[in-house]
């Protein structure tokens, strides 16, 4: 349950951004959570709503977009957008050429994408 410490870092960014753009209130927060980021969206949501009290985002809604894992194959050079990594049929090997030399290029991201604010 490290989601709370990540949410604490998120609020540092939210407050800094709000100051920069002169927001009176933040009404919506949208984050991108990679499937392999180690963060559980539902725990993140719980942590967000408990942390927001008394902050500029006191009433904010949270939107979470889970971003899928993407690999690059060093065998054939193709980019691989994968299916669900928790499925038993999931394979880390390249579906095009079968190579196991694949490298993760996205899916570990944790990003504050945008804010909706009131000025």
């Amino acid at each position, binding site marked *: *349950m*490290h989601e709370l*410490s*990540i949410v604490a*870092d*998120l609020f*540092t*960014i939210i407050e800094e*951004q709000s100051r920069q*753009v002169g*927001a*009176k209130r933040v*009404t919506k927060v949208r*984050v991108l959570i990679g499937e*392999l*980021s*180690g*963060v559980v969206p539902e725990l993140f949501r719980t942590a967000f709503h408990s942390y927001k009290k008394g902050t500029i985002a006191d009433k904010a809604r949270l939107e979470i977009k889970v971003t899928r894992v993407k690999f690059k194959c060093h065998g054939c050079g193709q980019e691989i957008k994968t299916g669900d*990594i928790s499925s038993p049929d999931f*394979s*880390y*090997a390249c579906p095009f050429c079968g190579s*196991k*030399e*694949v490298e*993760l290029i996205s899916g*570990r*991201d*944790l*990003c*504050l*994408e*945008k*804010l*909706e*604010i*009131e*000025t």
Partner: protein
Amino acid sequence: MEKRKKEVLVLEDILGSNKKIASSIRKKLEEKGILAINLLSSPGSGKTTLLEKIGLRLKDRYKVGVIEGDIETERDAERIRKIGLPAWQIITHGACHLEAKMLAQIFDRIPADLDFLFIENVGNLVCPASFDLGESLRFVLLSVPEGDDKPRKYPEAFITSQVFVITKADLLPYLPFDADRVTAEALEINPKLEVFRTSAITGEGIEPLCQYLEKKLQELRTKNA
């Protein structure tokens, strides 16, 4: 007056602040020629015991220090001090992982002439994987009693590591743990992993692991020269 709503595009990495501190720690350590290793595993898989064995093997020829991360107590740091190595305990008081800022707080106490700095993370195969500490190498450990189905269940720890250490290999004859299967599964997730099979009881694998660490230290020093 009517409130005006607008959307602000931010696109900022939420862990950016941790990554920034970690990068600064990595730069300082590498400039000093210190090879830092972050050890990840679940509790009881043998991180401290492995460090005792590696420490005893390396301490005559190298300066070795250990940072111990635990939720409570100085027990692990005391074990390391008993074998004659300096150890610094970070007590997280409940946090399930170490963060770069925790290391930054004790960084001034780390001697500049160390060769190896081991950082034993809080026992947890999940959360520590998300936090860069400024290490040069990350080890993920898995002990034989934990079972051979773990790499795909905890992929982030295996994807972000450079070295996979199977510990308690002396128990292989007694438990249904397929070391070849677990190695293949870990390599499927991360083909670049170096894999070592070790036992602190029989000493198996400790020597090759130390030789690997010495090679990595040489590479770092060569890069600096």
